[in-house]
């Protein structure tokens, strides 16, 4: 007597990530190094008539309406980093590479690896662009779960200790219309 175990997983044809790429995730920490991936993301988006999700993960709480917050809110000493972040986002969005493309800036709080993995699922991403120095393993930068799906990683700063240091841990805070004061970094 034998019992039959049927698995939920089968050899699936791979059509989910087919070319052309419609949804492209461009993770960035706004460093010049990370910007090297921009032209590739833009080129593939132009080629396939796709859109780009400009994605940045921060260690502090970022208000969802960062780009439209009144300037006076960000002039508080505790909010200066948000002011700087907003400048960096706006500068990047003005890059000519984005001309004619649909770009959605998404800036969230969290750990880069799981947040990027979540973004890949939530935004139905076909392509992720990654810049690496190539000095260390890509294990932290790129991951795939046991089903073969992209798990995400600490992308643009993966092999760049100086960039990684930009992400400072702070207690998670709820998102609101006005930003919460940022805690001192650990």
């Amino acid at each position, binding site marked *: 007597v034998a019992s039959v175990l049927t*698995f939920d997983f089968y*050899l699936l044809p791979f059509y989910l990530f087919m070319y052309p790429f419609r949804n492209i995730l461009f993770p960035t920490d706004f460093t010049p190094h990370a910007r090297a991936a921009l032209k590739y993301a833009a080129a593939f988006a132009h080629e396939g008539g796709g859109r780009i999700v400009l994605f940045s993960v921060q260690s502090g709480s970022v208000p969802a309406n960062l780009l439209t917050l009144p300037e006076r809110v960000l002039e508080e000493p505790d909010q200066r980093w948000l002011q700087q972040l907003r400048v960096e986002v706006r500068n990047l969005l003005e890059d000519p590479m984005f001309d004619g493309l649909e770009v959605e800036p998404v800036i969230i709080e969290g750990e880069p690896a799981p947040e990027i993995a979540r973004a890949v699922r939530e935004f139905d991403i076909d392509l992720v662009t990654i810049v690496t120095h190539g000095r260390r393993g890509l*294990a932290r930068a790129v991951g795939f779960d046991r089903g*073969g799906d992209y798990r995400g990683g600490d992308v643009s700063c993966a092999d760049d200790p100086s960039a990684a240091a930009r992400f400072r841990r702070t207690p998670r805070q709820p998102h609101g219309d006005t930003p919460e004061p940022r805690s001192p970094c650990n």
Partner: protein
Amino acid sequence: VLTIRPPQRDFVEHRDSHTEIRLNRVLLATNFRPSANAAAQVAAELVRRTNAEFHALYVISDYVGEMAQMFPEASGPALSRLREHVEGKMSVFASEAKSRVITHIAEGRPYEQIVRLATDADVDLIVIGTNVHASLFGGAPVLGPDIERVVRNAPCPVLCVPTGKVLTPAPVLVAEPVPQM
């Protein structure tokens, strides 16, 4: 996942606020396993849309050659059969492809051979399939050592294409345990 390690060969041209993909040569590194199918399809589609030259490479790993030296009676013929098998697979792949494929079969360390061909042939993009499972490495997300070496040493960007969900293609029969008396 497109990995870029500047400075390296560049296949994107931005001029007069126009960004274009200018692929002249695409190299597909394949082992003909199911995990490479997705990469092959993406590479073929890229080549079709960009009119690039399509190179396909299979590397017979150097450990097969070492085995043949250690056990010449058994492994020598096996190596010969493997070469014939790979040549057959390459021929089928080239004949079924919708565009002309320049096939390559190399022997040695896979990443070295991939990087060498990419360098020698002035390849603009390497396409490679991935299916290394994190479960094999204590949950650590990995691409596999060979792919990481390719990414680190490649003269051009590397497009790592994850496979679909690959597990058992057929049900597994498991005998019920014998009742203990």
